[in-house]
């Protein structure tokens, strides 16, 4: 499996990323993409921006480890993960996962598996900056841990 992981402050281009992945993956047939975007109204106060922190080096290698684990479970041809860090406004893309396979079910399941792990295991920390000027670090969610447990 071809694998590429990028963590950076730069915006990503879904169309370009998918075209490149499909070209690299050869005779893929099925590409599943997940795009996560910043939500503006998760709680009672409107969100001004989200600040994402990661552990450079460690975060990238953890994501790659999880993707390689996915490749042992499903027949994957290529995987691309882009995760943004820094200040992000509502509506902006935070995370992009692309999975290419000959079979759509493998691509769907591997993408969902990787997203579940990204949400629960990958070293990212979110700080919410609200419209009223207040800020707080996001606490870990139990529902995401449950989603992750499905796969074990």
């Amino acid at each position, binding site marked *: 499996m071809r694998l590429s992981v990028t963590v950076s402050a730069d915006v990503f281009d879904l169309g370009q990323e998918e075209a490149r992945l499909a070209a690299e993956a050869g005779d893929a047939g099925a590409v599943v993409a997940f795009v996560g975007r910043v939500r503006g109204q998760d709680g009672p106060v409107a969100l001004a921006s989200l600040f994402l922190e990661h552990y450079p080096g460690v975060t990238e290698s953890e994501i790659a480890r999880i993707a390689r684990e996915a490749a042992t479970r499903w027949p994957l041809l290529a995987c691309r993960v882009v995760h943004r860090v820094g200040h992000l406004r509502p509506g902006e893309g935070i995370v992009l996962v692309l999975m290419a396979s000959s079979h759509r079910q493998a691509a769907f399941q591997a993408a969902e598996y990787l997203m579940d792990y990204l949400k629960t295991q990958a*070293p990212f920390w*979110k700080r919410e900056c609200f419209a009223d000027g207040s800020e707080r670090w996001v606490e870990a969610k139990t529902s995401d841990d449950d989603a992750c447990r499905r796969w074990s």
Partner: protein
Amino acid sequence: MINVRYFGVLKDALGLEQETLDWQGGTTGDLLSRLRARGGDWDAALAPGKVFRLVVNQSIVQGEAAIPVGAEVGILPPVTGG
């Protein structure tokens, strides 16, 4: 000497991002005990069960692990990414 880095909510709770400590060798348990011994915010933020993961030289460690002299140690609160 070792370099200790703090992430996410820990940076705010402890009031610093990273520090360099004298170190003659020891384990992750030794390091946590030493930090907790500072009391106050340190004891509260690093209480057993609160610290989710430690990273030694860019590798996430499970349970007690050795920290060699010169290592980079990351102390990671529960992740909230994606």
